[in-house]
């Protein structure tokens, strides 16, 4: 073997290790029990309720994140102002927060004893132990994933497109809607997929802030955790479903970001 030979081999070995490590647990989920057992345990009421809750709550969270987060990310990407770097770091903070800490933070802010607790109660809103609380927890942990992605997508835009739009008579808002968003499309979609995936998998903050109750707050990850000690097959089947949904999300991101109709602005 020539002296040049060891580096490419090292590269391949690293890739093989990473592949095995990442795919083995996922493959094992599907291999450990028969597909029939998986499907039948999926039909139990608790499982379907958990699925419904997970999908609905994560979808609502994602809609909120996209509607509020896109303009926010645009502002961060298009302007330079004092303290911008600090703002960006603050927004990214939940990314590195352990979910349990996120849960405690949410309780400390929005819980009954929290900073805004009494005001929320006065408004007649109850967040802890409710489905709304699940949405809040999911939004908190997933938003940074979207914001980060979208901010860099907007930053990567050729600013002359935006300027050209202005010189052609379009206001800033029209420029945002008609030029910035379509050309940042792939980044927006991958941010959405990341945030949605994160929201589907959220466990710690949800458990702490919203609790775990079938039909109201027990999302799929919480149901898996509960099933784990009594009904391992049930836990497996729910895990398999979650994996399938996540894979579907990733695939649709790949397809959409390469789509022709987006003008292929992703260069």
């Amino acid at each position, binding site marked *: 073997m020539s002296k040049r030979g060891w580096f490419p081999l090292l590269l391949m070995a690293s890739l093989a290790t990473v592949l095995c490590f990442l795919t083995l647990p996922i493959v094992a989920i599907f291999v450990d029990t028969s597909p029939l057992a998986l499907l039948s345990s999926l039909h139990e009421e608790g499982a379907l309720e958990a699925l419904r809750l997970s999908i609905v709550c994560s979808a609502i969270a994602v809609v909120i994140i996209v509607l509020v987060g896109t303009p926010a990310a645009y502002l961060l990407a298009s302007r330079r102002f004092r303290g911008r770097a600090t703002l960006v770091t603050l927004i990214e903070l939940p990314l590195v927060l352990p979910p349990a800490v996120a849960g405690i933070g949410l309780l400390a802010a929005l819980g009954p004893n929290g900073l805004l607790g009494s005001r929320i109660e006065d408004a007649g809103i109850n967040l802890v132990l409710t489905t709304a609380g699940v949405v809040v927890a999911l939004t908190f942990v997933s938003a940074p994933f979207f914001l980060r992605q979208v901010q860099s997508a907007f930053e990567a835009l050729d600013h*002359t497109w935006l*300027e050209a739009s*202005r*010189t*052609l*008579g379009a206001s800033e808002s029209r420029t945002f809607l008609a*030029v910035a968003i*379509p*050309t940042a499309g792939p980044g927006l979609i991958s941010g959405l997929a990341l945030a949605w995936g994160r929201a589907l998998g959220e466990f710690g903050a949800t458990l702490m802030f919203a609790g775990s109750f079938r039909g109201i707050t027990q999302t799929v990850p919480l149901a898996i955790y509960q099933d784990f000690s009594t009904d391992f097959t049930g836990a497996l089947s729910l895990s398999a479903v979650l994996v399938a949904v996540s894979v579907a999300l990733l695939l649709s991101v790949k397809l959409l970001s390469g789509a022709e109709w*987006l003008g292929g602005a992703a260069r």
Partner: protein
Amino acid sequence: MLHVEVGTRLGAFALDVALEVPAGCCLALAGPSGAGKSSVLRVVAGLLTPESGRISCGEEVWLDTDRRVDLAPERRPCGYVFQDYALFPHLRAWQNVAYSIRDTSRRARRRRALELLERFGVAHLADVRPRTLSGGERQRVALARTVARRPAALLLDEPLAALDASTRASASRELNRVLNEAGVPALLVTHNFMEAALLGDRVGVIDAGRVIQQGTAAELAASPGSAFVADFTGAVVLTGTARGGEDGLTHVALDGGGALASTEQGEGPVAVSVYPSEIAIEPSGSPRTGSAQNRLEVEILSVTTIGNRVRLGLAAPQPFTAEITSASARELALTPGMRASATWKATSTRLVRQ
């Protein structure tokens, strides 16, 4: 009439410009990179707000820092052609052109867009996306898009820079036609003096934020106001020290050796300017015949043939260039390394302040 007054800091220097461009006229701002020319365009378009300035087009005031008037770019009816055209990648050609057309049905907008594309000879590309267009095609779509808005002034940023040499000729003809037909004031910036000369009715040379000289291209080339302008407009520039002579001529002792005479007045450190085409080459050491006063012994560094002309790189020892016919170059058998004499008239020798 487009009236521009701008004063603002731009990094290392201050931009301080005052221009007037009448309707139907094109003023080309020519200068080196970083001179601030694009910034002038951006200020006029409203993409950059200067510390102080006043910009008006006809009756409308677009910017007046004293009175706190600062119209947003979309409220200024100017057409901006960007250096790389900035066509929207997610829209087809006709949609790009129709972008500024509002208030009508989709069909009407498409029809108007097609008309404009037809005028520029690219109607057949109406449904194509910019990604697949060539440089020249993109320029035409960009022009169509700009005039679709019926702008009151045109701003062009290095309009030919993104094109390859072969397309540039036809593109500049195209551009000339647009500028003539539009009938509005046009401000164009370029780093290439030839381009400025071709496209502009008047040329302003800008460096480090200031317009050093304004006039027609011929005026600037013939009477450069400074060494920089002379250099920029393609003349030969040699440095030396001048003093008046009893024969009424100014004698210049060149730095590094050699002497020249000029019919212009000057004293002290000067730059001497002459055009390459005004210089004649004779075999080295030949006696002076004829009226040409200036003669320098030079070494030939390079010989480049351009069609029926030959450009010679010379060293006296200061470097400069001369242009003679290819025929003469062959007759004299000029090759690099040879010594020769370069001669020209004192009346063609311009003196410029250092």
